[in-house]
């Protein structure tokens, strides 16, 4: 896409007016998506994303520009005009570009571009059939299959040159059950930082059947009655509680500006003693894994909370300057149209000592949130919300009946201290996380946990 010499020229153009750091992020991406509804392929799209983001820093101040016009002279003039914003004169030259050594955490065996149309159609149909044939009450199944091959080239004035190819694939389904004019939706998805070999480890018929079962169960469930009670949050996508209640508030994006509830709390107790939380971008083939982050730093395992004590934030290079700290390899962005900032990768609670059965058995009255939906948080106040897509009441240590329409709310600093049981069944769920630097694959995970008391909203009761 570009030679090292050309890159160096652009970097030097950006440094001409006093900037101390310039970074180029070239991207060439192919997104392929198909949508099946009513059992027929209705849409098939290809999108080719290609361009460059040029970032110019002076201390912690940033000027960013992006364009899909990759003409060399245009990029020289763009870099110059961005750098001009610093109104000074040159203080440094771009260093010799040296390719970094990067670890490999994903091995693609079945490249999406080599998968035939008929094979893709068959995968989508298999999931469709699994869901549709579960019950006569299933009135619609929409399946989406997307794959993305992103190639990036990062050059910076400190002499870094890094390149990587990232492949991820994801299948998702929305299943609607209807009866007596009432409709209920269930959704789920499966994604990996892999090609189509990821389908070797999933039975799509069974996956579809389970989503349909959830939709039908919820269709006949009474509405959740709003109240404050203990909540048992199941494993896998249940980890969205860590993502919302704590993860976003540990991102340097808000921490560096003292805008987070967890700013200036390193070394302090912020969670109950049984809680250890990790963000690890190196897990093999996992949905949130990266070989290098979007600043070219090889990813790593960051322990965020250890036995309840706050150990680390998630930090990118620019915020590291603000915080007088180092990058934790947490810089991410959706594409060249965003400048990178600190984000999560694979974020999870470590296994605890309890078993799932013991947690249910020792809960006299509570809500079992079996499947979580999405949520959001405002890091400034730490207040979060998320939806329970499939919930059940727990009475006298037993799961009794399903409830629908439950929403969990609270504040991160409060809920982490109220986790009173953690089981040993850690698994992951595959989400898309939207924030300042766009929408990125984020893996959430946890073993089943219990929060001793939470506010749960719902339409039930009077």
């Amino acid at each position, binding site marked *: 896409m570009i030679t090292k010499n050309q890159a160096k020229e652009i970097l030097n153009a950006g440094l001409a007016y006093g900037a101390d750091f310039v970074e180029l992020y070239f991207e060439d991406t192919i997104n392929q998506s198909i949508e099946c509804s009513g059992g027929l392929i209705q849409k*098939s799209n*290809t*999108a080719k994303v290609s361009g460059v983001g040029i970032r110019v820093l002076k201390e912690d101040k*940033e000027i960013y520009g992006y364009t899909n*016009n990759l003409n060399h002279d245009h990029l020289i003039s763009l870099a110059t005009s961005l750098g001009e914003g610093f109104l000074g004169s040159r203080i440094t030259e771009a260093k010799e570009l040296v390719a970094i050594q990067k670890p490999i955490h994903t091995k693609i065996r079945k490249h999406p571009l080599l998968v035939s149309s008929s094979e893709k159609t068959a995968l989508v149909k298999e999931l469709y059939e699994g869901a549709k044939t579960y019950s006569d009450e299933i*009135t619609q199944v929409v399946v989406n299959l997307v794959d993305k091959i992103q190639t990036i080239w990062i050059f910076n004035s400190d002499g870094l040159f890094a390149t990587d190819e990232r492949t991820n694939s994801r299948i998702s389904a929305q299943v609607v059950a209807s009866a007596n004019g009432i409709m209920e939706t269930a959704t789920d998805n499966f994604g990996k930082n892999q090609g189509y070999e990821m389908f070797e480890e999933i039975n799509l018929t069974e996956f579809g059947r389970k989503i349909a079962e959830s939709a039908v169960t919820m269709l006949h469930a009474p509405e959740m009655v709003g109240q404050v009670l203990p909540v048992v949050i199941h494993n896998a996508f249940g980890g969205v509680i860590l993502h919302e209640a704590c993860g976003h508030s540990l991102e340097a994006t808000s921490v560096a500006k003292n805008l987070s509830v967890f700013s200036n709390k390193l070394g302090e107790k912020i969670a109950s003693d049984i809680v250890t939380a990790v963000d690890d971008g190196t897990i093999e083939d996992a949905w949130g894994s990266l070989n290098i982050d979007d600043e070219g730093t090889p990813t790593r395992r960051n322990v965020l909370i250890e036995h309840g004590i706050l150990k680390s934030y998630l930090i990118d290079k620019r915020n590291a300057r603000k915080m007088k700290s180092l990058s934790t390899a947490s810089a991410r962005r959706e594409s060249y149209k965003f400048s990178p900032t600190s984000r999560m990768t694979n974020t999870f609670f470590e296994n605890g000592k309890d078993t799932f059965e013991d947690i249910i058995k020792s809960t006299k009255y509570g809500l079992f949130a079996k499947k979580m939906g999405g949520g959001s948080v405002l890091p*400034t106040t730490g207040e979060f*919300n998320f939806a329970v897509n499939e919930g059940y009441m727990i009475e006298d240590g037993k799961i009794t009946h399903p409830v629908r329409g439950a*929403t969990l709310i609270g504040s991160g600093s409060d809920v982490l201290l109220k986790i009173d049981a953690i089981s040993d069944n850690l698994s992951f769920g595959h989400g898309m996380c939207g924030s300042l630097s766009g929408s990125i694959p984020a893996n959430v995970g946890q073993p089943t946990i219990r929060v001793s008391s939470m506010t749960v909203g719902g339409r039930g009761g009077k």
Partner: protein
Amino acid sequence: MDFEKIVTRSKEVGIEDIEIYAGTSIGTSISLFNGEVDKFTVKDLEVVSIRGIYQGKMGYITTEKLSDDDIDSLLESLKQNALMIEAKEESIIYEGSKEYRLLPHKENPFLKVSSAEKIELLKTLEKSIKETDPRIKQVSNCSYSESVSEVRIINSKGLNLKKSDFYGFMMAAGVARTESEVTSVFDYQIKDNFTSFDPVSLGQEIAKATVSKLNADTVASKSYPVVLKNDVVADLIGAFKGMFSGEMLFKNLTLLKGKENTQIMGENISIIDDPFLEEGLSKSSFDDEGVACNEFEVVKDGVFKGFMHNLKTAKIFKTNPTGHGFKPSIYASVGVAPTNLYLKPGTNEFDALLEGIEEGIYITQVEGLHAGIDPVSGSFSLKSSGFLIEQGKLSRAVKLIVASGKFLELFNQVEQIGNDLRFTYSGIGAPSIKIKQLQISGK
């Protein structure tokens, strides 16, 4: 890119009809923190999306690599995508509407404004927030952005249309802190003229709203009479607007199937989509398929008047396209979306909405709209905050509650409608409304 060449070449490779949708956008955004520019961003993009009918099916390809050398491979991808389609419905490339109502031509006023003036605007805004109340300790997300976009649609049936749009957006959030509490409220102004921004009054409003949320507590769980702030009403309409879409009808994903010309909401409710509305943010003469836009009544006096359609869904349901064939993004297929969709305002001043409520809740903000709603079932359960209403007056702040209900039921229980129509940045407009009863979960 040579669009003529794409059209000519498409015929040669067996594509029956083809349409090129080309979008350019340039823009600037600036964010300020503690009186200094924290980040300055410029963009300059040109994206070409091509769709074409091959063997009767519509294939799509979108690219940011604008080289004529790629035309053949793009057309080949388009054909491959068309061959994937199994749906039987007819694909249509449109020759154009008989006439288009034009929007008044305006010069882009932002081009004449220097960066220094834009930075000064933000400094004024930040200062205004900080100086309005000593309990404001920080200002976050203080930023300005402007975007100029242009779209061209050209097709093999002779359509050749062009439109452009520009806006400026200024926003910030105040952060108030006491020993035991943090509150933050964000607000914004969107203008099509730089001189219309009023950073001083916006700053004062943000500061007042932020400190007014201090000393908040939850409330007992039960159903309450509720007043919903205009922005909250717009958020809810935006979250459930798919209900009115012909595409959702085709997918069997709307509760309103078969409900045309029946009473679905209270008689006091009218919801209108007006592509020419002066204060609207999504003004348009034609949709993304070249169909002329017109004012469209979705709900009139509580009666559902009909679905919004694009070319394809109109054909399926044997009706006329309504000019709602919009792409959710340039990379996606044409779907169905409104332009300036709004709830028709009433005549009540805001205070009149509170009158007669002995104990109720005024909801000023809902969160988690992507998660706490089911657009198909119409149910919502959303984290909310606002104020307690006691004896017809606002009293203390309320936080950490969940408001739960059903979209259609909600609009069957509207007792009064305010006169304070406001369009949110999502393009949906609404006034504040008073609801007879809504389920609130707290403690």
